[in-house]
């Protein structure tokens, strides 16, 4: 852990990460501390120049630092030399953006130093003279030049040479877009790899695997690491296990009360649960710590959004984007705000921006779909929902949305497939089954409809939490009528009685009960043998699994 020394001190983020982890471990005794790396002859010769340059570097006078380092031979100094040149280019680029000649030049500003750096570094790379940090820098330069493939190779090399440098791993994370790519990387076998894998699994939405990795890291002794805790919380957020994520975040805030990182995710969770006071507390707290952080702005935006002050919310998201134009979440959230304000065109713009920043942002695709749905273009929005569904194949919300669109387009077969699939992948909002049942009802497939309703009721009751679910009464009413038609009096009357406990179906339930009584009296003998209360399971659920298993969702025929 203490191996991270020189290079990291130039890269605050990576250094911070390593220190955090080190802090999470048990403190070492003095005797156990590894000796500081020995200085070589070259290092000693460059030491003064290096120290001078380092202080300039810390003062952000990059060109000056580079100037004093130009003749140095040692690896350390060389890295600092190149790195300051790189950063100077970046800084100039940022300054330039403000100062451009007009819209014409938009996107034209770039880091002029990159090309030169690349030439020099590639020569060194050829001659195998680069150390781990040099390789890392070379990779960064390549990535900035959009040479992703070469960059990946270089970063992999960097991790082999210097496995303890988290920066290289992190860069690698940004470059890997799918699982297949991950498979073909040959990575060094160190404990850092575990961190990397866990991180990338989270990125690629492979939450199960990520959680496993993190658990094993905790077991290995990193139980106090705030980094791991926050990552786990984010992972839970991604699979929408809100309660768990919330509790972990609360824990995290106890351990690290001045933390700003990841707090935007936390605020999202609070938002989803509509926990106004907590969100307000968080917003004020963060605002006190640092107003001008992207995360803070996001939290405040969420807070305003929850209070239905959408203009203000949009304003804060805009501020977040000013602070960091590549901060993806804010674009999407701003889109949501515009949607709330019924400003569809601005919403579309925001979502499109989000997609431009990251094509894999499923929320933006979903948001676009929603916008067009609001504009009453169900066919048009299919495309967007499909994209969202592709990115999150196991998220029921997209499937339900798709199903609704198909329903609007009168493509009932596809709609049924979507709803069934949504149910199969674990429906969050518990609406898929009702919708499916209604579809069956519409198509006069009473058997399937009844089965869906049964499943739905079982689902609701097994959850046990929701009391006032609107559709429960509908389900009972339909079931009562269905059983009535099938002349299964016991079930029918059970359902009808259930109906009576809901306001909107009370009258119907009573009427049905009377009818049943009448008919029963007429044909007393026939109906004695059945006596199962249907919605409380066993006997029925055994034979009531919907017979029409519409297995894997196949929309390929309609997907362009």
């Amino acid at each position: 852990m203490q191996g991270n020394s020189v290079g990291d001190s130039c890269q605050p983020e990576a250094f911070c990460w390593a220190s955090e982890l080190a802090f999470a471990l048990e403190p070492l005794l003095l005797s156990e501390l590894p000796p500081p790396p020995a200085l070589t002859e070259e290092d000693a010769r460059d030491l003064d120049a290096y120290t001078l340059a380092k202080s300039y570097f810390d003062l952000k006078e990059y060109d000056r630092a580079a100037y004093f380092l130009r003749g140095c031979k040692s690896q350390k100094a060389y890295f600092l030399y190149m790195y300051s040149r790189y950063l100077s280019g970046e800084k100039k680029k940022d300054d330039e953006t403000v100062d451009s000649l007009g819209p014409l030049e938009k996107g034209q500003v770039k880091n002029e130093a990159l090309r030169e750096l690349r030439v020099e570094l590639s020569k060194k790379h050829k001659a195998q003279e680069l150390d781990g940090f040099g390789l890392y820098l070379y990779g960064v330069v390549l990535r900035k030049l959009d040479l992703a493939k070469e960059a990946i190779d270089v970063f992999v090399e960097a991790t082999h040479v210097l496995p303890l440098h988290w920066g290289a791993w992190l860069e690698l994370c940004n470059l890997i877009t799918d699982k297949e790519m991950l498979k073909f990387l040959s990575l060094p076998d160190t404990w850092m790899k575990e961190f990397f894998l866990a991180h990338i699994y989270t990125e690629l939405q492979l939450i199960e695997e990520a959680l496993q990795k993190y658990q094993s890291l905790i077991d290995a002794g990193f139980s106090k690491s705030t980094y791991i805790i926050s990552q786990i919380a984010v992972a839970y957020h991604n699979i929408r296990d809100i309660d768990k994520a919330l509790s972990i975040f609360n824990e995290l805030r106890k351990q690290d009360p001045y933390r700003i990182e990841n707090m935007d995710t936390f605020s999202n969770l609070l938002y989803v649960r509509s926990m106004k006071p907590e969100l307000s507390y968080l917003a004020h707290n963060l605002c006190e710590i640092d107003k001008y952080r992207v995360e803070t702005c996001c939290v405040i935006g969420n807070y305003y959004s929850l209070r239905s002050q959408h203009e203000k919310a949009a304003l804060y998201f805009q501020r977040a984007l000013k602070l960091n134009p590549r901060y993806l979440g804010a674009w999407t959230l701003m889109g949501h705000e515009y949607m709330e304000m019924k400003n569809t065109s601005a919403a579309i713009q925001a979502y499109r921006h989000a997609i431009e920043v990251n094509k894999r942002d499923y929320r933006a695709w979903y948001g676009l779909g929603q916008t067009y749905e609001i504009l009453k273009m169900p066919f048009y929005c299919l495309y967007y929902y499909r994209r969202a569904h592709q990115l999150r194949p196991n998220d029921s919300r997209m499937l339900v949305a798709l199903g609704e669109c198909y329903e609007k387009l009168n493509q009932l077969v596809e709609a049924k497939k979507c709803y069934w699939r949504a149910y199969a992948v674990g429906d969050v909002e518990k609406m898929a089954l009702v919708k499916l049942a209604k579809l069956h009802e519409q198509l006069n497939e009473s058997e399937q409809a009844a089965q869906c309703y049964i499943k739905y009721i079982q689902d609701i009751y097994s959850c046990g939490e929701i009391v006032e679910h609107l559709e429960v009464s509908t389900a009972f009413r339909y079931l009562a009528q269905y059983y009535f038609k099938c002349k299964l009096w016991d079930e029918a009357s059970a359902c009808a009685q259930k109906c009576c406990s809901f306001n909107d179906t009370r009258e119907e339930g009573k009427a049905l009960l009377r009818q049943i009584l009448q008919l029963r009296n007429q044909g007393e003998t026939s109906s004695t043998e059945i006596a199962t209360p249907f919605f409380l399971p066993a006997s029925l659920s055994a034979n009531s699994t919907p017979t029409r298993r519409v297995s894997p969702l196949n929309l390929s025929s309609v997907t362009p």
Partner: protein
Amino acid sequence: MAWCTPTCSASRTGSPLTRWRCWCSSASWAALARSSTSWSGGGSTGCCCHCCRLKLIAEGELKDMEQFFDDLSDSFSGTEPEVHKTSVIGLFLRHMILAYNKLSFSQVYKLYTALQQYFLNDEKKCGIDENDMELTNTEELDGKMEKEELDVPLREEEISCSGPLSQKQAEYFLSQQASLLKNDETKALSPVSLQKELNNLLKFNPDFAEAHYLSYLNSLRVHDVFSSTHSLLHYFDRLILTGAESKSNGDEGYGRSLRYAALNLAALHCRFGHYQQAELALQEAIRIAQESNDHVCLQHCLSWLHISEQKIFDSCVLLEHSVNKSLHFGLPYLASLGIQSLVQQRAFAGKAANKLMDALKDSDLLHWKHSLSELIDISIAQKTAIWRLYGRSTMALQQAQTLLSMNSLEAVNVGVQQNNTEAFAVVLCHLAELHAEQGYFAAASEILKHLKERFPPNSQHAQLWMLFDQKIQFERAMNDGRYHIADSLVAGITALNSIEGMYRKAIVLKAQNQMLEAHKLLQKLLIHCQEIKNTEIVISVLLSVAELYWRSSCHTIALPVLLQALAFSREYSLQYLASETVLNLAFSQLILGVPEQVLNILHMAIEPGLAHGAVLDKGCAMFLVAKCQVASTASYSQQKKAEALESAILNLNEAKTYLAKVDCKEQLRDVLYFQARLFHTLGKTQERNKCAMLFRQLHQELPAHGVPLINAFK
């Protein structure tokens, strides 16, 4: 005042693209240079001066540029100002001065370096490489240097991403490429390089929505459903933004682009043949258009609706509506397209020819009035096709030639080279086939070669000539009796047109004497074509079926089939097929032993046949006539008989020349045999021997398939 025209500054460069580039860049960066020439006096010397001025600034120092701007503001003052403040140039100059004054310190320097670089590039370009088609190369110099310096080969993308285009440059580039895609695909950039340019464009200016649309068109070219959908939707997402700024939901606002977005999506699905999807999208477009009372959009929807429904069931009702309404709303383009489509449908449905021609004439009037040259082309191509359908090859030929020779006129007038549109492909294909029919195979292959050049294999309309090419090859192979070759062509034809392919397959089977299979296939085809109402093929199939019958000596069964075919072809006024049917009928009757009757019918069929028919058919017809003449001599006196036979021999000679033209050896052999027999009867030994010898030669060349010689008519 002498205003240096854009072309002036470009006159030193060769290709149109380079010329454009020079102009556009001068429009943006070197606008100052241009304006400087405006009061430097001479018109033709302006170009030179402009260069000088630029050179002075570029090679001089920053102060030269500053001086230039200082001078510029002076030109408004004085008793007799060189430029009026309110004139176009005056406004432009004042704009420029204002913009310059606003620049911050570092921006001024940046402008100067940019100008220098621009000048340097231009000079280098003119000096080194006249034909450099590269659009942008602001940093090519560095790129090249670096390339030499670096052993690692730079990736191509990196080099091409050399710099941004200005707004004007980009717009011009897009409109140019789009019009090329429409009119002359071969001249446009290849799909790959065009996409690369577009990506580059979007990289530097992601808000440039039109580029997405072009990328959609480009993806259509390579039949990439996925990325074309993606680009289309992206374009409209962007468009909605720009529209939103003007008006919220009004006529011009983004409500409009929403409608057209849905409409375009429908068009996309139509193009890819997803008719069901298209219809859903159309419903949406129609609904939104109705809600906002956009009749123009509704008309477009209606037209597309017709196209998508046409594939499912043909109805003219929609189309008629569409034509009427379009005329009402003053959409001549749409109306004409509707009329043309209607004419086509009616032609297939066998409506009276004169009415159709009238309708086309009327719509032509409309075209000329609005100078819709594209539609004129289509109209002529359609006339060609209709004449072909009716079997009037001469008229078809004439129409085809009209279009082709009109082209030169068009190019002179408008300056738009509209010569690679679908209309031309159609006409040229017909021309090739017409020539092949007349036995001018060399000419036909020449035309096809030309087609291949004009419509390279991966372009939009290439499938047309591919089909015709294979059809012509097929016919030749059949004439030659090389059935295996014909058989191998069937697969290719089927790929392009399944019905045609099936029909050809049946013909090959028939020729190979696999009667049973052929019959089965033909029956299947017959049912299918009757369903989709493809009368032309139906009649052809009926003829083939009849032929199968008489080949198996069931002439009595063949007769009703032939009569049915005749009725059809008369009803749909397909004259070519009608005369062929009559010939078949005559043959059957001949075999059934009523030669006098046959001669009567033949007189009816022979004239149109000789006038418009293919050479092969002419030969067969003459052969048949001779046969009938001989058959009818049975009852004649000796004297008359000899005369009749003489004339039969003359007819056979004619048949021979026809058949020789198309290389139809098998029939030629039969004719020779028959002729030899006639000579023998007349006692002309020498002639007989000559014919016999020729027959012998051919017979050795072609093994007889056991088909009775006289019994076959074709």
